[in-house]
């Protein structure tokens, strides 16, 4: 069942086409991600769906409703985090949660939410006394206060420390387990890979690829990286002779990296060579294409650029 349907969405700001003909669906219960560089049109799209702004053209449906007309009912049933936001700095944590709870028909127990984000002891602290990571946790948990069916998370972990990031990833995973649908935007490759069931890669207001992360990566026509470690030294020429190997890198200290379009034949001959020449492969790793490689291949530049 489709929770979000977007058809041929357009939004211009002056001369800039922020959203330039975007179409996609989000299915119930999936974590759907928009991956792209800053300024690609991610926030514009998500904020049109949330009802913050109107599209110039195109059709949006959220849980079967129109954000422009049924905004109030939609807001009752969604949870959001904004990319740039601030909270009432002079409220205490529990006061802020209770205030937000009062906006909804069926709020959840705010104490349980505080427990989930590990801030029970901070309940009487003012928002302005919290660290950046703690504030981000509060911002995240405000999105859950009405037990929403659908979560919109705009760059949920931008600028966070690794520990807070992991925590938020966990809670997103838990929201999915609870049957919630999640639509998130990110410019972090690893975040999209770790969280999303499907990813739309977006650039210059257009979706340039849309699939599961695994399919996207498999479709990238890039070399795979086979790295290993041996005791002593190997003859590079012998490695380069193996069929299917494009190039070999001697990283020093007995570490070598092979680049090859196909992994399987190279691994096979590598193992044969090891056996016949009496060396032992240690620390063997194979690295396929990343979503970043997909992005580079489609756009010719890096995502952070």
């Amino acid at each position, binding site marked *: 069942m489709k929770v979000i349907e977007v058809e041929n969405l357009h939004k211009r700001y002056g001369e800039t086409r922020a959203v330039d003909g975007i179409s996609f669906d989000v299915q119930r219960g999936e974590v759907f991600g928009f991956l792209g560089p800053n300024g690609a049109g991610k926030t514009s799209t998500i904020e049109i769906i949330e009802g*913050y702004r109107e599209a110039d053209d195109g059709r949006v449906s959220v849980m079967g409703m129109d954000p422009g007309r049924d905004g109030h009912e939609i807001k009752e049933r969604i949870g*959001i985090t904004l990319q740039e*936001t601030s909270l*009432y700095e002079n409220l205490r944590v529990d006061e802020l949660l209770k205030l937000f709870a009062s906006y*909804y028909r069926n709020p959840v127990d705010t104490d349980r939410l505080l427990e989930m984000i590990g801030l029970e002891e901070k309940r009487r602290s003012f928002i302005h006394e919290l660290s950046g990571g703690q504030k981000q946790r509060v911002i995240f948990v405000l999105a859950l206060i009405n037990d929403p069916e659908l979560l919109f998370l705009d760059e949920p972990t931008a600028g966070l420390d690794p520990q807070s990031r992991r925590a938020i990833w966990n809670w997103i995973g838990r929201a999915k387990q609870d049957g919630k649908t999640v639509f998130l935007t990110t410019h972090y490759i690893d975040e999209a890979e770790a969280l999303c069931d499907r990813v739309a890669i977006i650039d210059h207001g257009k979706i340039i690829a849309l699939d599961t992360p695994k399919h996207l990566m498999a479709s990238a026509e890039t070399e795979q990286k086979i790295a290993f470690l041996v005791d002593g030294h190997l003859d590079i020429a012998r490695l380069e002779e193996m069929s299917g190997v494009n190039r070999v890198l001697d990283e020093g200290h007995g570490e070598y990296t092979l680049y090859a379009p196909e992994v399987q034949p190279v691994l096979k001959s590598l193992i044969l060579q090891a056996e016949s020449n009496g060396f032992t492969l240690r620390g063997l790793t194979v690295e396929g294409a990343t979503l970043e490689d997909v992005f580079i291949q489609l756009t010719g530049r890096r995502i952070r650029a």
Partner: protein
Amino acid sequence: MKVLLGQLRVELLLYLRDTAVVTFSLFVPVLTVLFFGYLNRGGQVEEVAYGSFLIAGGIGMVVSSAAFENLGVALAQQREYGVLKRLGGTPLRRWTLLSAKVLMASVIILIQALIMVALNVLLFDANLTGNFLLSLVTMTMGVISFATMGIALAGLSRSSDMASAAARAISFPMQFLCGTLFPLSTMPPLLRTIAKALPLTYFVDALRGTMLTNRGMIEYTKDWLILLGCFALAFVVAAKNFRWE
């Protein structure tokens, strides 16, 4: 209703916790009234004790400063910092939010008005001999009208700096010119003309009349109509220019 009361409680908490704003908005009018009351102690204006004259003037100053400098500027700041944008993503309706802000301003103004009455009665021989009910009607009209003007000002300002500059530019001259501290009749013609173009003049005039005299409602028709007109205008501007972000 529950949402409105919850929001009102939070707005009041936020106001009281902002020490700088509380200090400024409370002490400036109080000190001004104390200063002028002391200077003119024992004096008479238009056949009443200066202290009695000063009550409505002091309340007028408080209303203007609460509506523009507190409500209007705070609203523009919350918009600029992104607080309002987050609220816009919840089912909270803009009318509930703005009503809570107007009620918050009303509570603050009421407390300050009581302080003004107490100061002038206790220190400067003021006497409230007017019509309580009509004073209350005038107060309500004035507070709602000026609070709506404060919200309209926030809507018209692009930034909180702009709102703050505009609030001061509007509120400061009104607080001194509009028959607050001296009667219009003693002012030079130019200033009197300016005062007559400012809405606070009519609020202070009606409030003073209803608080000190027992004249009938008909006396205040002009003042009240002007206040209602300002409210209607401000309401349209506020509704048209309100933004969550």
